[in-house]
């Protein structure tokens, strides 16, 4: 049985931890609002981009565009988008586990795998796994900027065009709602016309007008494709950013609750111990008094 003093120290410690988790919970809640707002601000841009790409690629011949070229897949790169910071529950672990599963399935299919990382947590893990990491971008999730997405997009396109990799997929923490975030894998390269058509169908809005294209549609597409990759990466980063804050909020909420439970049970133990001590003391006094009488 722990002494009274030990229990008291423990209670104080846990109370301090609770203060920290409560504060982190509130900070995460505030940051989540910001991250969610940015995600929503980005959506019209991404949607518009996708719908124009869909319009254009219907006419496109995949063989003309190097970024659409379907090759026999020997090397796959998975871009893992995680957060930079921990203390957000199983959020990063979930993404990493899903990544490992995907990589294993690719290895089983006899393909070589490479990993690219955005976010420190994913990089920290994969740099210990002995896989080749041709690109990593860390410490950007605090303030997500288009230029970081562009950097990743350019490097990935280059790897693809140089024939270093034949397919690029990406995994990120999809933000479903505040309590649910799901690791999701999507294909980035080669850009598939079918993938774009799906988007197009989703936003069908009446008969399409015959556009004047300036310059030629192929030329436009050539310019937009690299940008489209950036847009996709950016969207993934923003979603991961929002998911991270949501996950942290939930994790810190749980931690605060656990603290409260612990404090409760420790206080109970403390009171019991205190009473026991008093009883023992009384017994001693009574015993002493009895002895004197006799």
């Amino acid at each position, binding site marked *: 049985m722990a002494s009274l003093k030990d229990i008291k120290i423990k209670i104080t410690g846990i109370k301090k931890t609770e203060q920290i988790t409560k504060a982190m919970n509130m900070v995460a809640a505030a940051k989540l609002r910001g991250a969610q707002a940015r995600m929503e601000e980005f959506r*019209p841009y991404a949607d518009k*981009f996708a719908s*124009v790409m869909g*319009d254009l690629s219907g006419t496109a011949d995949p063989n003309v565009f190097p970024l659409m070229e379907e090759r026999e897949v020997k090397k796959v790169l998975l871009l893992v988008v995680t957060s930079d910071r921990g203390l957000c529950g199983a959020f990063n672990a979930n993404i990493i586990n899903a990544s490992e599963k995907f990589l294993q399935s690719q290895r089983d299919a006899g393909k070589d795998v490479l990993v690219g990382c955005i976010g420190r947590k994913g990089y920290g893990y994969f740099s210990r796994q002995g896989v080749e990491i041709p690109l990593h971008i860390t410490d950007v999730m605090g303030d997500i900027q288009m230029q970081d997405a562009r950097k990743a997009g350019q490097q990935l396109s280059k790897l693809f065009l140089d024939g270093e990799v034949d397919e690029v997929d990406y995994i990120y923490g999809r933000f479903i709602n505040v309590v649910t975030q799901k690791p999701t894998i999507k294909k980035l390269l080669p850009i598939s016309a079918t993938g774009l058509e799906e988007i197009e169908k989703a936003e069908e809005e009446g008969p399409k*007008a015959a556009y*004047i*294209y300036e310059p030629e549609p192929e030329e436009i597409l050539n*310019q*937009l494709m690299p940008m489209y990759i950036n847009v996709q990466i*950016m969207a993934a980063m923003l979603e991961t950013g929002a998911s991270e804050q949501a996950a942290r909020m939930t994790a810190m909420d749980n931690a605060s609750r656990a603290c409260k439970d612990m404090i409760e049970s420790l206080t109970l133990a403390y009171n019991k111990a205190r009473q026991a001590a008093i009883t023992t003391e009384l017994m001693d006094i009574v015993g002493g008094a009895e002895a004197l009488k006799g």
Partner: protein
Amino acid sequence: MANKLNLEVVTPRKLVVSDEVDLCTVPGTEGVFGVMANHAPILSTLNIGPMHYNKDGDTVRLAVSGGFVEVSNNKMTVLAEAAEVSEEIDVERALRAKERAEKRIQEAKAGREDIDMARAMAAMARATARLKVAGKMS
């Protein structure tokens, strides 16, 4: 028939403009062009440069960089990687950027191979567009 054009300027950061305008002029890749109400559908890529639109006699000027413009059904959408209204432009920063870009271009011409000429030129164009829009350069 409506004689106003619905203009939206969208960037990754925010919806910069959403307004009913009379005329909008944008820097297309194949040349600057103006769009008025009931323009034929058009899809064009954009250069880095100044754009402006007129509304009830007022002119609003913006600096845009990279993206494209789509016009259909009297609705014009400008999708740019960055767009700033003249009042928002940081002149000091643009001036510094211009100097830096000029220096880099000079050095690249002088034979330094580690400088990406295309990037320096793009930086130069962005800075120039901002300064033009801010009215600090003709």
